[in-house]
C-alpha cells in the first residue's frame, strides 16, 4: 500500500478566515458508555458489572471484526452480501484443520507453543476466506452488479450452498474446539475475574479497528476507498480502477470475517456449519444499527448489541432472545438510517 506522499505543507491553513467547522456527531459514541453506566445500579454488584462489561466489549469486538467487511463493501459499492456469514463459518472450519491436528500444541501449557499454532490457524482462516471472497465476488456479485434484487438473491443462494458444502465435507456434527491452555482461565483482580481470552479478543478487535481507521485516513488506498464511497465515477475519471479496489476491499472484508469466525469458534469452543447463518443475522443487526457503510457506526453497533445481550441475559434472560431486535427498533426510531448514516446515496 502506498503511504500518502509527504508534501510540502507550505499552504498551512490561515487563521484569519476559518471555514465553518463541521460539528462532530458524538452522541452515538456516548451511547455504550451511558448504557453501561445505567446498568450499574440495576446489576448491583460492581464485580458482576465489570465482568459483564468486559464480556460485552470482547463479544462486541468479535462481532465488529465479522461485520466490518460487510459494511465497508456496502459503503464502497452499494453491494450487500447476504452470504457474508459463509466466510465466518469457513474461517472457523479452516481453523479446525490447523488446530485439531496440532492438538498437542494447543494443549501444551506454553504460551509460545499455543501462539505458534493459533497464528497459522488464524492466517489460514483469513487466507481461505479471502480467497473464497475472490470467487464469490467474481461469480456471484460481478455478474449482477448494480441490481439489488438479484444481488440479494444470488448471495443468499451462495450462503445456502456454502453452508451445505460445509455439511457435506465435515458432516452435521458439532466439532469441539478447545481453547489453548494458556488462554484458559481468568486474571483475578480483587473480586473481579476477567477471562484471558476476552482480553485477547478485545485486543485483536481494537487492533483491527485502529488498523482500518489508519488505512482509511493515512494511506492512499484508504483515501480512494473514502472517495469511492462518495463518488465512484469521479474516482474512475481520475484514473483509478474502482472495481479492482472493490475486489481488494471485498477480499479483505471476507478475510476479516474468517478471522472473526475462528475467534468466535474459540470463544464458543465449538464449530458448526449453521454458525454462518446464525451470525449473519447478528452481523446484519449491527450493520443496520451502525448505519450501512459506516465503520465507526459498525464499531459502536457491535458493542451495543453485545452489551444488550450480556446485560439483558443477566437481568432478563427471557427478553434476551429478542433484545437485539428491540435495540434495533429503538435505534431506528431515533435515527431511521442508523447511528451514522452514510449519506450521498
Amino acid at each position: 500500500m502506498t503511504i500518502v506522499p509527504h508534501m510540502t505543507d507550505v499552504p498551512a491553513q490561515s487563521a484569519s478566515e476559518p471555514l465553518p467547522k463541521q460539528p462532530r456527531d458524538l452522541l452515538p459514541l456516548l451511547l455504550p458508555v451511558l448504557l453501561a453506566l445505567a446498568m450499574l445500579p440495576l446489576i448491583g454488584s460492581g464485580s458482576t458489572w465489570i465482568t459483564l462489561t468486559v464480556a460485552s466489549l470482547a463479544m462486541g469486538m468479535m462481532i465488529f471484526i465479522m461485520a466490518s467487511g460487510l459494511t465497508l463493501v456496502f459503503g464502497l459499492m452499494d453491494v450487500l452480501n447476504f452470504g457474508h456469514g459463509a466466510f465466518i463459518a469457513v474461517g472457523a472450519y479452516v481453523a479446525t484443520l490447523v488446530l485439531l491436528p496440532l492438538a498437542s500444541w494447543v494443549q501444551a501449557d506454553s504460551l509460545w507453543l499455543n501462539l505458534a499454532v493459533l497464528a497459522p490457524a488464524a492466517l489460514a482462516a483469513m487466507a481461505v476466506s479471502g480467497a473464497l471472497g475472490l470467487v464469490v465476488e467474481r461469480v456471484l456479485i460481478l455478474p449482477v452488479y448494480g441490481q439489488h434484487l438479484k444481488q440479494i438473491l444470488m448471495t443468499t443462494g451462495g450462503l445456502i450452498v456454502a453452508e451445505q458444502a460445509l455439511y457435506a465435507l465435515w458432516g452435521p456434527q458439532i466439532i469441539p474446539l478447545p481453547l489453548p491452555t494458556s488462554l484458559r482461565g481468568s486474571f483475578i483482580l480483587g473480586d473481579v475475574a476477567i477471562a484471558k481470552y476476552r482480553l485477547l479478543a478485545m485486543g485483536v478487535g481494537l487492533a483491527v479497528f485502529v488498523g482500518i481507521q489508519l488505512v482509511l485516513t493515512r494511506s492512499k488506498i484508504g483515501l480512494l476507498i473514502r472517495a469511492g464511497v462518495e463518488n465512484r465515477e469521479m474516482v474512475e475519471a481520475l484514473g483509478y480502477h474502482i472495481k479492482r479496489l472493490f475486489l481488494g476491499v471485498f477480499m479483505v472484508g471476507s478475510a476479516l470475517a474468517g478471522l472473526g469466525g475462528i475467534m468466535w469458534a474459540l470463544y464458543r469452543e465449538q464449530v458448526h456449519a449453521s454458525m454462518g447463518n446464525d451470525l449473519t443475522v447478528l452481523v446484519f443487526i449491527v450493520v443496520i444499527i451502525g448505519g450501512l457503510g459506516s465503520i465507526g457506526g459498525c464499531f459502536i453497533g457491535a458493542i451495543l448489541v453485545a452489551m444488550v445481550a450480556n446485560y439483558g441475559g443477566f437481568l432478563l434472560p427471557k427478553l434476551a432472545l429478542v433484545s437485539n431486535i428491540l435495540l434495533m427498533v429503538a435505534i431506528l426510531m431515533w435515527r431511521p438510517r442508523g447511528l451514522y448514516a452514510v449519506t450521498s446515496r
Partner: protein
Amino acid sequence: MTDLLTLSGVHTHIGRYHILHGVDFAIPEGQTTMLLGRNGAGKTTTLRTIMGLWPASAGSITLAGQRIEKIATPEIARLGVGYVPESMAVFSDLTVKENLVLAARDGAPDTARLEWIFGFFPALKKFWLSRAGALSGGQKQMLSIARAIVEPRQLLLIDEPTKGLAPAIIGALIDCFAELKRRGATILLVEQNFHAAREIGDAVLVMDNGAIVHRGGMADLANDIPLQERLLGLSLEAHQ
C-alpha cells in the same frame, strides 16, 4: 494544426433513451472549443461518452490517434484526459490536499505547479487542510478544476464551470482558462454563459437533439446575432 480528439458518428443510449444521434466533430490541438446548445441537447452526454462514463453504442472516438470508445474510464483518464463534471464531484469527506493527492495519481503533486494553481485559486491554499465538503460552491469548482490540471493533461473536458457562481469567481476561472490556453492546453468546454464563452473560445460547436448543428469560429458566431437566434433559439447576448 492537427486534431487531438475526433468523434465520428457517435451514438449513445442511456437505458432505453437514445441521446446522441451521430455526433461528429474534431478538436484541434492547442485550442479551446466551446460546446453550446440548449439544455438536453446532449452536451453533458457527449463529455461523458468521451470519458467512457456512458458507453458509445456506435461510432468512433479517437484521441491522439488512438481509438478510445471501447476503453474503460480509468484508462482514458490515464491517457491524459482531465474531467471536470457538472456536479464538480469533489470528495467532500477528504481535505483539499487529499483531493489533489488523488488527482496527481502517482506521487505528490508538483510543488511549482501547485503554486501556479494557487495563483488563480488562493482559497485552495488557504483551506489546504480543510474538508472539501466545507468549501463554498465556487471554491469547490476551483478544487474540481485544480484536480483536473494538477498534472499536465492532453485534453481537458470541462462541464459548465461557471454555472451558479458569483462574477468574481467566474473571473478567476476565466483567468485560469486563459492561462491554460496560453500554455497550449486543449480544452473542450461546455458553457452557457456567453460572456465567458466568447472570452475563452477559439472554436465553437452547437448541439441540438443529440447532434452537432453548427461548427465554426467563436468570433463568427459572436458577431452573427441572427445565427445565434437560429441555432440556440435566443440571442446569446441576452442570455447570460
